[in-house]
Structures are given as structure tokens and as C-alpha cells.
């Protein structure tokens, strides 16, 4: 029997390591430590209901387990073979317990390729990876295929880069393989700077070997013997697991010299980021790996021509790499049979925001937003109304009701005014102000701009300021025109992908939520009730009982009234702090 405990960041944050400890202690006390293994895996995906404990082989899926639940799991399930119903997942519509994850709405529509091992294996043990066909793809490539055949296979699979751009991976490999040089590099982009995205992290934490194996395959395909993983320093657990994985792979001869006795050498080193979103951009990433400021440079030359230390360099994203061993083993045709015409395979999303089932999901390309949000995601939290879904992070846009039935793929999302990006998917409800959301993303890009080119360095700041102006109720119709023009010019003139896409959150919200902009500018109102400066606090005299609680709470003395008489707010003094609203037990303070 195996007890799989989620060791993903979300679950660890809820003390899943303590669960492991307690389970082990309990098993030892009962003398079962040899029969039952406790394994800490990577993220199961269903982080909303974490910490997760899964019992194998019967596939029982326990949710929201607490460290103090360890004894009962051992006593009931392990010893007596009885499921602990209290810890089972309850289907929100049918109100029934579901014990096998296969039958949960969250998992039903998912197909797991990149995440195939996450939640199944102990990422710190190479044997478990090997037991699940690990390193067979590398063996196949090295022993049975030529480099050109490997490139061909990837080309045929139709795999496109999962880092955001969607560039065909096989084509990228082909270009790198054709550039002649004494040294080439394979780089794995594990910078994942998207705020609200944790796909790559979960792959690295849950299945590091799939990335190592795949990088070696890439090295063979393009003729490189060195691999570098650029990983953000903010991911200590992923770093630790990668270090362990690299050491184990070297020990097994799966990295290093003469792999599988084929004469092929390949080794991998880690390079650390240091907190700069722009370093996800490949030229910036390369400069950062060279010990410099992470400022992008013009392309061409592309890294495939002149990259790390001026040598041909192939940069791919973590998820892109993680999909490759499966393609090599199951074949390009199989992979190409999944997905849409121009986007093959599956895509991992980090589903978050105002949604019931926050988590990590992997769905076939072509799944609709509605399926993702309402079936997998279980709909909007607290029964609120769906308003928008943000994809593509700071480069992407906000889609709305009318896009819910769009099948998700690279091209459809762009056509809808957003983009795939790396896979962040944030759901918003009626309480979210779309102007503020745009402002939030601009705040991010202002902070993360490298400062090299003027449209991004200064222009984004101006966009932010103008949005701020609008959320304060000072905007004019002319400002909206000007905002749009600045957006287009920044997209048109910025040096790198950051600036070329940073206005997208504004443009997409202007397109899809124009009324909301008008409300801020013309009516001086924030329909979602988020923009503080546009709120008006007043007291409904009919409801007010004159308890004085609000007057005592007001920091600026804006509220007057006699005891037991209706109170009133002087709007000229009120600073809209909301204290009165919070204090009034009679709902007499109203906001409009």
C-alpha cells in the first residue's frame, strides 16, 4: 500500500510535511512501516482542496487533510480498510462523497501529458521515474534514431512552445541543429514570472526528470552537449528537487559522458534568476545567465544563431520539454491526434481567482473556456456571477461571457484579443473592476520593465498614470482616445515582447468592457464598487438607529448626528475609508 501526500507548494503551505511525518510516526507505532510507504509527491493539481492524500492502489482521494488526521487514516483506512468519509471530496451539486479522483468534475475532462507523473511519483527518487518509462525516450533517441529523425518526430507532432509564443518546437530545433558551431547549448526556461502562474514550478517539483531527459534528447537532436536550466531563485523546492534529480541522473549515467554507451555526452547545470520578470524573455535570460543585467536585445540574431556566449542556443519552456518524452515514446501521430488543427496536444493552466476549484489542470487544446471554468473549475466562488477570465498574464487580456465557448488554442485566443501565454488563467466575478484589473497589470509591467527602451520605460508609466486618473474619476473621453493611441504605439515600437504586449490588458478590457470605462469617465462611477475615489458613502436615515458606532469609528469626524437620531455623512470631509460601513450593524451605511 502507498500513501501519496502532496508536496506541492500549496499543500506544503498547509503543513503537508507534517502530515507525512505524522503518518510515518503512526505507521511505525503500528509496526506497519514496511508494508505501507508514505511518499511525498508533486502537486496533484487540486490545490483548492489541499492538502491531498491519496491511498493507492484503491485510488482514494482525501482532501483538506490536517496533520491531526494522520492517526485516523492509519487506523481506519490502512488497518481496517474503511474509507474515512469525512475526508472525502463532496460533489458540490450532487452533495455526494466521491472517493476516486477520476469521477470528480475537476479531473474528468483532463488529459495529463506534461503532468503525467505529478502526484504519482516521488520526485526525489529516480527509480520511480524510471518505473514509469522514464529515460526510455532518451534511450530510444540515442540508440535507434538519428538526430534528424528526432527533429522530424518533434516537427511531425505539431508541438508548439508552451512558454507563451507558441513557436513550433521542431522547427526551432531544426534551425539550431543546422547552425554550425563548436559548442551549442540547450536552455530550459524555468523563470515563470507570470504573476499567478505555477505550472512550470509544479512540473519541476513533481517530475524533474522529465525535463532533464527531454533536454538531453534536445541536445542530441541539435548537437549540444551542455544544458542550462534558468530557474527563479524564488522556487527553492524546485531547485532542490532539480539538484537531487541531476545528481541521481549523473549517478545512473543518464547525464554525463557516453550516455547509454552511445558516445553522446550531455550534462546540465542550474542558473538562478534573481527576481526579474523580463528575464523570461529569451535574450534577457541569456544575458542574465552571462552575469549581466537582464536587458533584452534586438532579434535577429535569434538565440538559435547567437545565444549564450554567442553560441547557438535552443531555449524551450519547462512544459514544452516535459511533453517531449511522451511524444518520443507514443509517437508524433498520437500526440497530433489530440488538440485542434493548429495547436496539438494539451496545455497546462494554473486556474485561480474567484473560482471554486483553484488548481493546476491539463486539458486538450480545443477545450472551451466554459468547460474549464464551470466543469473543471466548478464555477464561480460564492455563487457570484462570472465576469471575465484573464489569460496570458501581463501580456494577455480579459475575455468575457461571449468568449466562453471559444475552444482554447494559440490562435483562437489571439483572435479573441488575448493570448495563451504561459498558462495563467484568472477568473473574475462581478465584484472585479476591469479598469482596476488593467491598472493592476500595468503596475506590474511598470515595475518589471527593464528600462531599456523609451516606449516601455516611460510609456507604460504613462498608461498606468492615466488609468489611475480614470479610476479616480478624473478621466475624460479624450483621455480614453489618448490611452488607446499610446497602447497601440507602445505595442508597435517597444523593443521586446514585454513592451510589445504590456498594453494588451488595457486594450482587451477596453474592447470587452467599454461600458465600464465609460461609467468611470462619464458617470464617474465604478460599477464593481472597487474604485474607492468613486464611492459615495451615505446613511440611509430609515435604517439608522442612531447607535453612534459609525461616528466613533470615523477617523476624520465626517459623521454627525444625535444619539438615537439618524446620522449623516458630510461628503466634503469623508475620505472614503469605509470604516463606518464596516461598523454599522444595521446596514444603514450605503455606498453608491
Amino acid at each position, binding site marked *: 500500500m502507498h500513501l501519496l501526500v502532496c508536496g*506541492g*507548494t*500549496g499543500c*506544503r*503551505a*498547509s503543513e503537508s510535511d507534517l502530515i507525512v511525518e505524522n503518518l510515518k510516526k503512526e505507521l511505525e507505532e503500528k509496526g506497519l512501516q514496511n508494508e505501507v510507504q508514505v511518499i511525498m509527491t508533486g502537486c496533484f493539481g487540486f*490545490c*483548492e*482542496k*489541499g492538502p491531498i492524500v491519496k491511498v493507492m492502489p484503491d485510488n482514494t482521494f482525501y482532501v483538506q487533510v490536517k496533520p491531526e488526521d494522520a492517526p485516523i487514516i492509519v487506523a481506519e483506512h490502512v488497518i481496517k480498510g474503511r474509507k474515512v468519509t469525512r475526508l472525502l471530496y463532496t460533489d458540490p451539486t450532487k452533495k455526494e462523497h466521491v472517493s476516486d479522483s477520476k469521477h470528480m468534475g475537476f479531473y474528468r475532462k483532463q488529459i495529463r501529458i506534461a503532468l503525467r507523473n505529478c502526484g504519482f511519483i516521488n520526485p526525489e527518487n529516480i527509480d520511480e521515474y524510471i518505473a514509469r518509462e522514464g529515460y526510455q525516450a532518451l534511450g530510444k533517441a540515442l540508440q535507434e534514431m538519428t538526430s534528424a529523425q528526432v527533429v522530424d518526430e518533434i516537427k511531425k507532432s505539431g508541438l508548439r512552445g508552451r512558454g507563451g509564443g507558441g513557436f513550433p518546437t521542431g522547427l526551432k530545433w531544426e534551425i539550431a541543429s543546422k547552425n554550425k558551431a563548436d559548442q551549442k547549448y540547450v536552455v530550459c526556461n524555468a523563470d515563470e*514570472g*507570470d*504573476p*499567478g*502562474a*505555477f505550472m512550470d*514550478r*509544479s512540473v519541476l517539483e513533481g517530475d524533474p526528470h522529465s525535463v532533464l531527459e527531454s533536454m538531453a534528447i534536445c541536445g542530441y537532436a541539435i548537437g549540444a552537449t551542455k544544458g542550462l536550466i534558468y530557474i527563479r*531563485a*524564488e*522556487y527553492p523546492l524546485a531547485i532542490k528537487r532539480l539538484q537531487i534529480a541531476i545528481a541521481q541522473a549523473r549517478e545512473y549515467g543518464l547525464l554525463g559522458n557516453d550516455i547509454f554507451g552511445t558516445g553522446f555526452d550531455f550534462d546540465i547545470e542550474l*542558473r*538562478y*534568476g*534573481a*527576481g*526579474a*520578470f523580463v528575464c523570461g524573455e529569451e535574450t534577457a535570460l541569456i544575458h*542574465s*545567465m*552571462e*552575469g*549581466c*543585467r*537582464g536587458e533584452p536585445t534586438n532579434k535577429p540574431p535569434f538565440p538559435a544563431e547567437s545565444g549564450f*556566449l554567442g553560441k547557438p542556443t535552443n531555449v524551450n519552456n519547462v512544459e514544452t520539454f516535459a511533453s517531449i518524452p511522451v511524444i518520443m515514446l507514443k509517437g508524433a501521430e498520437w500526440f497530433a491526434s489530440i488538440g485542434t488543427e493548429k495547436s496539438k496536444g494539451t496545455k497546462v493552466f*494554473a486556474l*485561480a*481567482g*474567484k473560482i471554486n476549484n*483553484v*488548481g493546476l489542470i491539463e486539458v486538450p487544446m480545443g477545450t472551451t473556456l466554459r468547460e474549464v471554468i464551470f466543469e473543471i473549475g466548478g464555477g464561480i466562488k460564492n455563487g457570484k456571477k462570472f465576469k471575465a477570465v*484573464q489569460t496570458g*498574464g501581463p501580456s494577455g487580456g480579459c475575455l468575457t461571457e461571449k468568449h466562453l465557448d471559444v475552444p482554447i488554442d494559440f490562435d483562437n485566443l489571439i483572435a479573441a484579443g488575448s493570448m495563451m501565454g504561459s498558462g*495563467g488563467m*484568472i477568473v*473574475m466575478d462581478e465584484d*472585479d473592476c476591469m479598469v482596476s*484589473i488593467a491598472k*493592476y*497589470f500595468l503596475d*506590474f509591467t511598470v515595475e518589471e520593465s*527593464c528600462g531599456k527602451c523609451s516606449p516601455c520605460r516611460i510609456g507604460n508609466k504613462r498608461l498606468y498614470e492615466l488609468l489611475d486618473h480614470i479610476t479616480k474619476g478624473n478621466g475624460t473621453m479624450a483621455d480614453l482616445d489618448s490611452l488607446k493611441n499610446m497602447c497601440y504605439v507602445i505595442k508597435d515600437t517597444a523593443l521586446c515582447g514585454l513592451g510589445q504586449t504590456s498594453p494588451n490588458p488595457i486594450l482587451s478590457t477596453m474592447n470587452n468592457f467599454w461600458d465600464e470605462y465609460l461609467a468611470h469617465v462619464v458617470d464617474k462611477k465604478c460599477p464593481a464598487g472597487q474604485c474607492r475615489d468613486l464611492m459615495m458613502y451615505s446613511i440611509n436615515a430609515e435604517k439608522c438607529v442612531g447607535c453612534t458606532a459609525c461616528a466613533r469609528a470615523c477617523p476624520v469626524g465626517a459623521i454627525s448626528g444625535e444619539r438615537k437620531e439618524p446620522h449623516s455623512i458630510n461628503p466634503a470631509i469623508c475620505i472614503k475609508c469605509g470604516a463606518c460601513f464596516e461598523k454599522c450593524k444595521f446596514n444603514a451605511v450605503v455606498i453608491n
Partner: protein
Amino acid sequence: MSSIKIELRKEDIDKINEVCASFNNEPLELINVLHKCQEHFGYLPAEVQEVVAEQLNIPVAKVYGVVSFYSFFTMTPHGKHPISICMGTACYVRGAEKVLEEFKKELGIQVGQTTPDGKFSLSSLRCVGACGLAPVVLVGEKTYGRVAPDDVKKILKDYEG
């Protein structure tokens, strides 16, 4: 001219030299060297950067250019209990901003600052990968999930005394 002299304790200089040597004094490894130094000293004061520059044989202006570019590097010491509020999108839409405001109010400091007693410092970061628990607050190594503004006082109490 370079009339400013840098003073450092011998063991600190030795430590930096050792870190640089472990990377073969290779300028390409500057960021790794800085990570190691920050791990050791807790921050990267000018003196440390001077020694690193000297060891790697690169201009100190360049070292500073790198340190000031990356938000992970800091030239001011963190508080004893560094507090980071996740401002990733998931946390933001679930009200992280209000939590941050509350911390600022309670501690009387801005993001990037440390309380005068050196106990707390405040920073914001983007997505710690625990979006299921949004909004998320980190204090040192400890993660607090589903934090509401009202919880702020309670959290700070954990570190009293």
C-alpha cells in the same frame, strides 16, 4: 578619485573570496556569487559588492548595475521576520491589496522598508504557487493562506516577544 576606502572585517573578506573562488572567479557567475553572498550576509552592502568586483575583476559599477536590476537582491538588511505579501493576480483578485494596506498600517512602514526595531520588513512578491490559498502571506518560511485584513494583527502577534 577613489579616495573612498572600503572597510570590512577579515573574516567577511575571506568569506567573499571563498565564494568567488568557488565559482573560479568567473565574471559569468556574478549572479550566482551574489546569491551566495546575500545568503551569507543577509543583504549586499556596498562593501561586499566592492570585494566581489575586485575578485571577479569587473567594475564595481557593473556589479551595482546588476544588484540594482534584480529585485531579489537588496542593499538593506531585512527584518528579523521578513513579511512578503503575494501580489500575484490570483491573490490580488482575492483582496491581497487590502491585506498589504493593513500590514503597512500596522507596521507603519512601506514596502521595501524595515521597522526601526529591525523586527519586521515588508515586501511584495508575485505568486508563490499557493494560489489555492489566496491571498497568501509569507512570514519568513511560514506561509499563511486565505488571509483577511482582520488576520493581520493576529499574524503579527505570533512574532511578539
